[in-house]
């Protein structure tokens, strides 16, 4: 593996894991807040 290929692979894996987890947390948070917003005031 050449140096440039190793760098490309390392940054791709690193950024994919970081951004993938961030996306997962963001989607989960959005879904939960949407569910809370949908509740009636009596249920809150």
């Amino acid at each position, binding site marked *: 593996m050449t*140096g440039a290929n190793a760098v490309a692979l390392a940054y791709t*894996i*690193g950024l994919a*894991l970081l951004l993938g987890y961030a996306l997962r947390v963001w989607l989960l948070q959005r879904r939960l807040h949407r569910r809370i917003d949908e509740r009636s005031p009596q249920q809150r």
Partner: protein
Amino acid sequence: MTFPRRAFGAVYWTGTLALLAAGLYLAIFYAPTESTMGEVQRIFYMHMPIAVTMFLACFVVFFASAAYLWQRRMIWDDLAQAGAEVAVLYASIVLLTGMIWARSAWGYWWTWSPRLTFSLMLWLLYLVYLMIRPSIESPQRRALVSAVYGVVAFLDVPLVYASAKLLPDIHPESIELAPAMQRTVLFWFLPVLLLCMGLIVARRRTIRILREANEQRADEPAIPPNAAPTAGDTP
């Protein structure tokens, strides 16, 4: 979610992503090529800040676990779980980027050197932390077992840090950097730290919401005490 919090979140995450993109630019185009290792040394700009920030995530687990043992409040358990998830994420990146670097620089993917071994142990410890949690049904018992485990698991952090200094190791203890390289690695700490803190806070919030929803569901009686009798009920 209130509007100011939403606006702050949007600014925070946009800024973090912009800093991450700028860090990527600096690592690839701005930092000079290292004379001994060549291009592969550029992995260092991501590898090192993430490794240091991983210790911060481990410390969050330790602190929150100790706080739970002291106060027995579930908010600390939520924080410890969020910290452990981020610690596993960061440890995975450290191990993978390190292995790619090792393959290119040393010629092999892995060697059982003290720092690499203790780093693998750290990853496994926090992975097991997350795996044992769902296996304990009672929330209080789960929080207690996790808190004790979270305190004990932190003992590996000083071992990872000190192993390259105290024991003979192929992993470099420290390396000399040109000023442009120093600026690049210092810059990388910004997005990596912001991501770590933002992810822990956001994940802790979702864990708390889910826990409170579960508690609410558990508190609701199966048959409401003042429910009207239905047609099938015997008098």
